């Protein structure tokens, strides 16, 4: 579970790093990804892996289109309008999903379903293994992408100073669209990985709220931070469910979020610089 929070948080962090927009619709992109994959697997009978690839590609393209048509217009405006915009978009996605796929609850059949391996005497279901492996792979890949490739470096440059990056010959608009595509793709993967564990319905997106806690805990803007934050939140939730009275499990993530924001707003791995005048 923690890994899923980490994955969704990763999506937030990617977009925040690059464009300084906070995407409140990230959870809903995750929901769209899960539904798309479900649609391919169950309605059209495509294989699981093909469906996963198709879902990621489709949602990624959708993310890029979203940036090109809508979100590009609000860059440079106060963050408030961006927050409202993405909240509005999230509501539209949910509404669209409920019209297109109905408000029933679905289960996604996967190659991992109902199989388990015994590790040191504890049965570990393959679904959870798939989540953990997928998360670690994806994180490593993204980290390498941002640190070692030219495009990744260009993205970092674009996020630090738009105008300067533009003068250096970096196609800033394309970079932003690309970032959105990657982020939406990550959300789709998270959705597909999550689908077998928690069923698919239109409210899947609310997991995004808990992923916020993960992103903030790790420091908004740090890729390893998002992952560590996600796992921490997952563990805290698990432990508070086991040791604290009923009801604490659901709010534990938010309590942690508030405490972190009050005590150390930059999170575990974040940096905050103060403007000098």
């Amino acid at each position: 579970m923690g890994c899923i929070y980490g994955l969704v948080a990763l999506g937030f962090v990617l977009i925040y790093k690059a464009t300084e927009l906070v995407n409140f619709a990230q959870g809903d992109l995750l929901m769209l990804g899960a539904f798309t994959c479900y649609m391919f697997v169950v309605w059209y009978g495509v294989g699981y892996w093909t469906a996963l690839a198709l879902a990621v590609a489709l949602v990624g393209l959708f993310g890029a289109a979203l940036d090109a048509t809508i979100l590009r217009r609000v860059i440079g405006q106060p963050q408030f309008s961006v927050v409202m915009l993405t909240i509005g978009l999230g509501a539209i996605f949910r509404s669209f999903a409920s019209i297109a796929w109905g408000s029933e609850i679905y289960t996604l059949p996967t190659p991992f379903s109902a199989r388990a391996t015994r590790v040191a005497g504890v049965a570990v279901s393959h679904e959870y293994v798939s989540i953990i492996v997928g998360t670690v792979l994806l994180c490593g890949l993204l980290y390498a992408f941002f640190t070692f490739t030219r495009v990744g470096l260009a993205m970092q440059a674009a996020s630090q100073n738009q105008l300067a990056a533009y003068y250096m010959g970096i196609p800033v608009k394309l970079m932003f669209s690309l970032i959105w595509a990657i982020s939406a793709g990550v959300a789709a993967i998270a959705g597909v990985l999550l689908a077998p564990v928690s069923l698919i319905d239109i409210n899947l997106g609310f997991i995004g709220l808990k992923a916020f806690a993960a992103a903030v805990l790790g420091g908004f803007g740090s890729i390893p931070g998002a992952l560590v934050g996600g796992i921490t939140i997952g563990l805290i939730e698990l432990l508070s469910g086991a040791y604290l009275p009923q009801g604490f499990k659901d709010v534990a993530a938010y309590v942690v979020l508030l405490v972190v924001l009050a005590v150390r707003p930059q999170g575990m791995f974040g940096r905050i610089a103060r403007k000098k005048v």
Partner: protein
Amino acid sequence: MRFIFKTSYTQDLGIFRDDVQRNWYLALLIGLLVLPLLIPAYLVDVSLVFIYGLCGLSLMVLAGYTGLVSLGHAAFLGIGAYTHVYAIQDLGLPWIVGVALACMVTSVAGVLVGLPALRMTGVYLSIATLAFALIIQEVLTRWERVTGGLKGKPVDKPVVFGVYLGGDAAFYFLCLVFLIAGLWLTGNLLRSPTGRAWVAIRDSEIAAQSMGVNLAVYKTSAFAYSAALMGAAGALFAHKIGFLAPDIFSVLLSIQFLLMVVVGGLGSLHGAFFGAVFVAMLPVAISQARDLIPAWASALVGPFGKDAGAAAFLAVDQFVKKPGLEPGLFGLILVLFILFEPLGIYGRWRKIQLYFSTFPLYKRATFRRQKAYMRSERLR
């Protein structure tokens, strides 16, 4: 184009710009006073508009004037409503004391949220208030001794100073009195040093700080005042809906309040009220449209054959009756407003006003926004 030439300080101190403006507001007030005679059937809806107006006012002070965006204002509404009902029904306190208590408790809650907010800026604050709202919702669900939990809590009709105000018209006037009091208080507060300090913080924290504005004091006071307004609105809201349950005060309600502020126009008291009218009337309009649109569609397709008309009616009817449509529509309106009319309804109203007052010299460019590049908010 008309210039106001001020010749005395009293002119500057008055609430209204000039006599013309004052007369217009008087006319509006008289209109509102005789409204119960004209549309007795819709008074309940209009009372809701007033309550939402109070909520909009509260969020406008925080988001529109101080620049602190709260995604959890429904939590304050909930705290206010539950405090009020608990005070008058379980503790047996007088009605007006209940309202005062609701205001006090919510403003304390506001300070509690506002204190950590001193260390955060921008989006972090929105996220923190969101988390606060979710925690409060859970508390309202679990603290059954006071809130009644998921079973809910029925609310009696209001009795103020021994006078029964449960009728539609009486409740309408009660809400109107509260709204006018709130408007008067807020309007005056915003013209005072406190209000100026809030606006300064909104425009630039660093500039405000270097001009001697104490950020801690003014940010917290903005939170406290906004929450207190919300508490009063909550007390009225409890009587309006007549039955309290924790899931009413959800994140969606908070988002509706934000929608109100954005659609109305950030940074204007008029905007809060325009937004309230819009948000309160939208569900009514949607349900009306649900019945009308299928008929229009069939009339549109009708000329292509009788069966086509009937089929279109069925298809469109099925589409518009899907349950998930309404929040999507809210989202769509929000997106369209932010993209095409960031100044909201009030901004459009100002543009129309300016068009006529400067006729034939109106320039589109007056309101055109500067081309903006991304400004990093990480360096604040």
